């Protein structure tokens, strides 16, 4: 057994962030309460360093630690997205924690650990690493959701998330144990080699595959495993909701894609129908149940279920085109979701968060800037040109058509039109009605920067996507050691 320093170099960003997260946890008692925001700025600076380190690994394909951990362009792309999303989340949380009076120093530590968990997920070359990454992310998120310990809703959401998350993890593990029993290997590439034998498709492999799919569908909150999403998204502090809905989901899609495209590409026929079922159910539930929601966080939760449905269509056909479509979709989705949650968390009615749709009535009269930014995010989520959301949906449906699922693309477009109704309804309430209640919208410098960044990215991805298209095209390689 030989161990080369390449292993350490390749995982430097993860090691660095783990050490940093521990330092953040330890530093917490020594930093006075009013200086807590320094911890956040420190975390941002370190994420930028880690980003540079990951950038240095660009274009390389390294199977590290005997294939347990894989650094390839695909995982580097997802890590970049995770860094960006985490930085934007921290920018939003610095003023938010002040306003909500959450003085928990561990917050940034947990955020960094959750990000490390996601990075491990997208680079996992083995089901052990994958499981540990998923659990690291989930355990941190359980705590973050219950951050407002005195608020009943927050703790209840945390409890529900924990219970259902642990339940899904157990089902996922049972699936892994069946796969291991059938194939005798836990590495993703080993599974792929095993599944390729014509005689390998025992019921055990199929059962294991279905159970792991349940676990992933839970993590990306796709129907019929979406039940936790609206409750948890509503109860959690809004910054954490934004983080889970955007970054967490992107990472979960990354690992979903790697496992199903690498390990199970040989028995594609067995899972295509399951994916189609998940996609149609998610699009139906996400876009139709959202119509009747009164709370904007619940509405965005259903919208995120619907978006999971659209993105799952990209998993159907393991081809370069689908991979590109899915990566582009997730990239745009990150910015528009974070931005929409950003508006919700800055909006305040009499000192509490304005999270009812009622609070958006006539926002344009009071605060044209907030209304306009919300309009960008809503139109983009609805998939209306010229915003990024349109192009993302377009690529996904094109990939589906080229893969021979024209009817599914038609269903998707129809349901996306249904979904556009409730996004546009919000824009209508903001622009066409007279304001009733006193709603404040006072972002500070950091929030402004984060909002403009997300809005600018949403627009630029729609009208001038070429630089990003080039970047994603260089990241289309999944390494199979």
């Amino acid at each position, binding site marked *: 057994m030989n161990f080369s320093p390449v292993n350490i170099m390749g995982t430097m960003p993860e090691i660095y962030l783990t050490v940093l997260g521990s330092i953040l946890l330890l530093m917490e008692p020594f930093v006075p309460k009013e200086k807590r925001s320094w911890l956040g700025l420190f975390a941002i600076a370190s994420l930028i360093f880690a980003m540079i380190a990951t950038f240095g690994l660009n274009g390389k394909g390294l199977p590290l630690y005997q294939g347990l951990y894989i650094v390839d362009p695909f995982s580097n792309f997802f890590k970049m997205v995770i860094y960006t999303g985490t930085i934007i989340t921290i920018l939003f949380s610095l003023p938010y924690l002040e306003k909500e009076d959450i003085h928990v120093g561990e917050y940034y530590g947990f955020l960094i650990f959750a990000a490390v968990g996601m990075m491990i997920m997208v680079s996992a070359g083995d089901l052990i690493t994958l499981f540990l990454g998923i*659990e690291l992310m989930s*355990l941190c998120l359980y705590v973050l959701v219950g951050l407002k310990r005195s608020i009943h809703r927050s703790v209840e959401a945390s*409890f*529900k998330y*924990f219970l259902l998350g642990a339940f899904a993890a*157990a089902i996922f*593990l*049972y699936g892994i144990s069946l796969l291991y*029993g059938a194939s*005798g290997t836990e590495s993703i590439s080993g599974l792929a080699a095993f599944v390729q034998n014509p005689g390998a498709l025992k019921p055990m492999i199929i059962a294991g595959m279905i159970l792991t799919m349940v676990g992933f569908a839970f993590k990306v909150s796709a129907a019929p495993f979406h039940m936790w999403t609206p409750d948890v998204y509503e109860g959690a502090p809004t910054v954490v909701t934004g983080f889970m809905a955007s970054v967490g989901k992107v990472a979960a899609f990354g690992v979903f894609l790697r496992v199903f495209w690498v390990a199970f590409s040989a028995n594609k026929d067995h899972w295509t129908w399951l994916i189609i079922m998940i996609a149609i159910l998610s699009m139906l539930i996400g876009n139709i149940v959202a119509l009747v929601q009164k709370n904007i966080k619940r509405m965005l939760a259903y919208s995120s279920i619907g978006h999971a449905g659209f993105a799952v269509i990209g998993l159907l056909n393991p081809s370069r085109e689908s991979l590109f479509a899915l990566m582009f979709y997730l990239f745009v989705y990150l910015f528009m979701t974070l931005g929409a949650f950003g508006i919700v968390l800055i909006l305040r009615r009499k000192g509490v968060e304005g999270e009812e749709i009622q609070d958006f009535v006539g926002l344009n009269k009071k605060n044209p800037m907030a209304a306009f930014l919300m309009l960008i995010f809503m139109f983009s989520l609805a998939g209306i040109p010229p915003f990024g959301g349109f192009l993302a949906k377009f690529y996904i449906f094109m990939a589906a058509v080229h893969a021979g699922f024209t009817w599914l693309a038609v269903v998707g477009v129809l349901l996306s039109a249904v979904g556009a109704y409730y996004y546009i309804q919000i824009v209508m309430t903001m622009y066409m009605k007279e304001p009733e209640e006193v709603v404040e919208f006072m972002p500070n410098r950091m929030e402004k920067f984060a909002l403009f960044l997300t809005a600018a990215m949403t627009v630029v991805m729609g009208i001038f996507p070429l630089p990003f298209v080039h970047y994603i095209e260089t990241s289309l390689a999944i390494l199979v050691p």
Partner: protein
Amino acid sequence: MVPLSWYVALSAFLFITGLVGVLIRRNIVVVLLCIEIMLNAVNVNFVAFSDYLHLIDGQIFVFFVITVAAAEVAIGLGIIISLFRLKESVNMDDYNLLKL
């Protein structure tokens, strides 16, 4: 020697016991225990397969599962305690502020 299928059957039985328990029991702590039963069913499976296939990595996985389960219980009990402080009850039906 006990054949492999017995172990797999035991594991499936444990897993289904836990699964049904999570779905029908209303006491929060019992539900947490049922999740632990499910995780241990997984461990039985791994050890049995590892022995049968003469491969050690299944048993390594078991260590990770045990560790993660311990961490999960620590966090879960923490959440349950903070929930109990707000409303002194361990019955799941009392926690319905968010519509499920």
